[in-house]
Each structure stands twice: as C-alpha cells, then as structure tokens.
C-alpha cells in the first residue's frame, strides 16, 4: 500500500510546521478550470509555504501544465470555481505581468523563441519592469551586467547565451537552462517549473537541477511539475502530490515519487474509476 498522508478530498496538505510561524505563500482551494469545452481541473487544493518544494506528478492529461499556466495567468482558461491566494492577494484577478512583479515565475515546458529580441535586453526589460512595479529603483546597464555575470557563474552558463535572441535556435537543453537562468536573475518568491526535465539528457538534467538547488532558500517556494520521478533524484522535494483527473489524489513524501516510478500511474486511475463512475 502507498502511504496516504491526506485523503483525496481533504484539500490542502497539513504542514508539520506551526502555521503561525510559517505563513502560507500559495493557497489554492477547490480550483476548477475549463479550457474550451473541457473541464481540466476539478477541485484542486494545495498550500505551499516559503522554503518548501512541492512536486506535482501525474499521468499525461491530468492537468499538470494547466495548473502552471493558470497560476501564471495564461489566457484561454476559464476558472469556474475556487480561489488562488498568493501572499494574501487574489492571484486570479491579476495580469500575468502583475503576478510576475508579485514574485510568481513560470519556467515553461516549451520556452518560446523570440527572434529579434536580444536575451540580455529582454531580461533587463523584464527585471526593470518588475522593479518599477514594486517601486524599486531600476538597474542601469552596468549594474545589470554585473548581476547577470554573477548569476552566469553560479549556473556555469556561457556568456555567449546572453548575446543571442531569446531562445532562438537554442537546443532543448539551452532553452531549459535559459529558463533557470531567468529565474536566477528575476529572483521570484514562487517558482513553478513546468516539466523542466522533459527532453533533457542526463547532463542537462543535472545542470538544471544544480541551478534549481542553488536557488532554494527559506524565502522561496517551488512547485515542480514533472511526469517522471527522475528529476526528483536531483531535486529533492518536501512533498509529492499526485494529480489525476484534475485533482490531487495522493500526497506524501519523496518516497511517493519512487513508488509511482515502480508502479506507474495505472493504480491512480484504478483508484479514480469508481469515483468517476
């Protein structure tokens, strides 16, 4: 049997820490999301505290990427019920750029190529837009370059990457590293990694994991969406959730991921089928 920490219907995961000492950063309650004619999320609940890293695993089509997109504010999704609070603010009414300025970052599963926009220029524009929105001083070119060089060093990335157009002609691995690099420069409070491991060979996977681990801190929370357990060998989660048919059906410790790996997702579906029926 798999260890069951919370029942599928209990909503959020009880946290071992005293909630008064560690305020919740992200609180998703009973989230229902529709895309077109299809209901994708059907009552998803989850809470995440600063400093924690939660992994979301699940079969294809479970709604993992939808969750990431909805949190980042992508168009094309209709929230039909539920709430999402981020540090006490209603996240769902905010524009994507407002969410970013508030500290939400989504590492894309498929980073978008933007020919004609220089990577450095893009990142500086983004960072300064966020700083401006937060009422902070914008960085000049020299200050920015200093920051960027420092982050490149931490991630052992080539500076050449900066001079190219955003993701344009990048290899799969370079694109994912560029996402992690952007995260390092933008220093979000909540980083959502959407299948950042997909399409990576083992070396690139390690490099990406090193980049993520270097950025773990008591102030920052991570939501790591992945299909495979492999990534979690390198990025060790505090909590693993299993998302199936639009809901979290299991939550547990890192060992849950290992069990999923050996059993596959079939059992999740078996568990679900009577409820669906």
């Amino acid at each position: 049997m798999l260890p069951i920490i919370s029942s599928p219907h209990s909503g959020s995961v009880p946290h071992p820490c005293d909630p008064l000492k560690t305020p919740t950063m992200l609180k998703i309650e009973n989230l229902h999301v529709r895309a077109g004619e299809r209901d994708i999320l059907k009552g998803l609940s989850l809470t995440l505290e600063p400093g924690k890293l939660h992994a979301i695993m699940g079969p294809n089509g479970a709604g993992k990427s939808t969750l990431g997109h909805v949190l980042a504010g992508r168009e094309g999704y209709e929230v039909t019920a539920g709430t999402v609070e981020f540090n006490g603010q209603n996240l769902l009414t905010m524009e994507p750029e407002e969410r970013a300025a508030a500290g939400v970052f989504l590492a894309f599963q498929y980073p978008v190529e933007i020919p004609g926009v220089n990577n450095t220029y893009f990142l500086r524009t983004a960072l300064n837009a966020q700083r401006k929105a937060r009422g902070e001083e914008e960085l000049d070119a020299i200050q920015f370059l200093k920051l960027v060089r420092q982050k490149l060093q931490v991630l052992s990335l080539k500076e050449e990457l900066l001079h190219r157009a955003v993701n344009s002609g990048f290899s799969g691995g370079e694109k994912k590293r560029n996402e992690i690099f952007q995260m390092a420069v933008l220093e979000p409070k909540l980083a959502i990694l959407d299948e950042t491991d997909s399409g990576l060979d083992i070396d690139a996977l390690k490099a990406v994991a090193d980049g993520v681990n270097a950025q773990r801190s008591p102030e920052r929370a991570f939501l790591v969406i992945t299909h495979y357990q492999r990534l979690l060998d390198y990025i060790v989660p505090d909590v693993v959730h299993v998302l199936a048919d639009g809901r979290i059906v299991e939550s547990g410790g890192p060992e849950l991921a290992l069990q999923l790996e050996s059993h596959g997702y079939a059992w999740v579906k078996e568990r679900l089928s009577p409820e669906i029926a």
Partner: protein
Amino acid sequence: MSALLDSFAQQYAALPEPLRAAGGLAESRSKALAAALRDDLPAARAERWRYFPLRPMAQRVFRAATGASVDAALLSDIPAPRLVFVNGWCDRSLSDLSGLAEGVRVESLGRLLHQAHPRDVAWLGRIFAEADETFARLNAALAVEGAVIQLEENVQQTTPVHLVSIGASEAGDAAWHLRHLIELRHGASLSVIEHQLAADAHAHFDNTLCHVHLKPGAVLRHVRQQNASEHASLLYRTDAVLAAGAEYRRVDLELGAAVSRHECNASLQGEAASMISGGAMLADGKRLLDTRLQLEHIALDTRCDLRWRGLATERAKLSFFGGIHIRQGADGTDAQLSNRNLLLADTAEVNTQPVLVIDADEVKAAHGATVGQLDAQALFYLQSRGIPKPDARALLMQAFLIEVLDVLDDADLTASLAPVLSAIKSY
C-alpha cells in the same frame, strides 16, 4: 489632362532655358515630358499601379519647390560625409563632404549640370519606354538635382555616405524630382544611408529616381530610411544593374509619409551577382505603402534574397509585390523571397503578391508570404516575465521588423539603425 500633369507641364515651362538645356539634355527632357503627357497617368486598372491612389493624386496640384531653410539641429545625428537636399535643392551650408576616401566623388547633380559636361550627365538621357512609367518620365523631364556618387576601381569608402532629403513647408504644396546615381567601379565598396526627413508638417510631392550601377566585384550597402511628413507623397524608384560578382545589400525602412511608393528594379546581369534586400514597412494612421520589387536574373549563378516585413494597423494600407524572373540561361540561380506581415487591426489592409517566373532549368527558388497576428505565446512569455502588455507588444513588433537589418551583414550599420525601429510604439 489631369490637374497633376498640368501642374508638372507648367513646372517644365518655368524651368530656366539654360538649366533645361544643360548637358545637351534639352531634347531628351522635352521628349520625356511629351511622352508623359501623351500617355497620361497609368489607367486605374494598370496592374503595376493597382494599389497606388492615382485618382486622388491626379487632382493634386504642385508648384515647383523653391527651397526653404531648416534648422541644422535636424542633422545633429547625421555625421559627415553628408549631402543635404531641402525641398529638392542641394543645401551646401548643411552639407559636409569631409571624410571621403581618395577616389570617391560625391557631387550634387545641380553642380554637374552647371558645369555641363555632357559626358558626365549622359545617363540622365535614358528613355522610359513603358506607357505606365509616367513618373519616371516626369523625373527625366524635370530633375535638375540629386546626388552623384562615383567610386574608382578598388576604392573602399569605410564610413557611410549620408544622403539627406528634407521636406520643409513653403507656400503651397511643392514638388521636386531628385535623380541620384550611385556608380561603383570594379571592386569598390561603399555604404550609403539615405534619410528622407520632415522639418515640419507639409504635403509635398517627392519623385526620386535612383540609378545603381555596380561593376564586377563591387559591394554596395544602401539603406533608405523614409521618415517623411505624414501628409507627404513620395515616389522612389531604384533601377539597379549588377555586373559579375557584384553585391547589392539594400534595406528600406518605410516609417513615414501619407503615401509612399517604392519600386525597385534590379537586373543581375553578371555571373554570381547578388542582391540581398530587406524592408520594414510600418503602415499606421491612414498611410499607404506600396512596394514593388522586380528582380531579373539574367546571368549564371546569380542570387537574390528578399526579406520584407510589414506591419499594418489603424486605417492603413500596405501592399507588397515581389517579382522574380529567372531568365533562360540563368542556371544556378538561387532566389529566395519572403514577405511576412502583421495585420493588427480589422480596419487595416495588407496585400501581398510574390511572383516567381522561371525560364531556366537548374535553379533554386522559393517564396513565401504570410499575413498574421502577433504571436500570443510570445506575448504571454514576455508578460509572464513581468513586461506589461503594451511594452511586450511593442517589443514583439520591433523584433519582427528589426530582423530585416540582418541583410546588411554589417554589425555597425545594424547597430546604428536598430534604434530607429526600437522607437516604434505599441499599437
């Protein structure tokens, strides 16, 4: 006769006799005018003038431009060597021809006509035989100014030569006809940057014709930055002839004017001659941009690569025609044409027509034309990084247009032009 042609006939009649006859051109000028008047403006259905607003233009009346004085501050960003024209007249006080390499000649056509060596200006006598070449004929009849740039064999001019044409208000709507010649001898190389600017708001008419002659192995980089008054009407025609191994890299940035028509005819006559051209066409407000390219591949192993981008919004109209004719015997030709457009408003219009005619056997040719919207995924990506939507839109538009600068294959030139496109606002 239309009011327009009548006003040009009057301009011709008012040309001082010595100027009209200078360089032995009296006969060719009068014949050109007669042909223009005889064949009249192109018919409304004339294919090559389909998208040009001939009918409203026919009602316009223009006086001969008399010149105006403009603030030199307008030229603060344009370094020497530069030749400056104000309302079609060369302004010596604003021009500065320092920094020309030995073997480079930059002269105003007006001065050449004044010196009147028929040999120097014989190229002005060219006959325009087609009935719809009305404006070229008018130029042949009326042009008494322009820039003549000539490079001797193997001369490398390393700093760009700037040609500046400024429109400034004067009494009534004025017209001028500039005629340029850029001639590079064997192995010479040069960059020319043209600026079409406005000192203030006006509704003048600028009819410019530019001849480009590239001898074997010559390399010309040629940029035209059209930022004319939003009420001005512009016609600009380029006729280029490329000898063996010559390379013509050309960029047109269409950013201003009420009406701007650009016609570029290039004849790749020598083996391995190549034309690489790109354009950024920004159609906003009620602007009408009409671009027509016609490439003739005549010799073996010639190459063209045409990358044109358009952005149409508000009530503007944008039309693009890209014609490539690969003639019999021009085997080994490599011809690429791409025209991509963003249509950002229901009220705007984009017409694009790539036409490939292939009469040779062994060629590589491809063309593509698209009309689309801003990429929603890219927009979300930028927003998700904190860039506000209007800024993200502007960034994508700028990026879309800025790519055409790559055709210049010159990092310094590209860097100097990028700010022009980065200044484009969001729509």
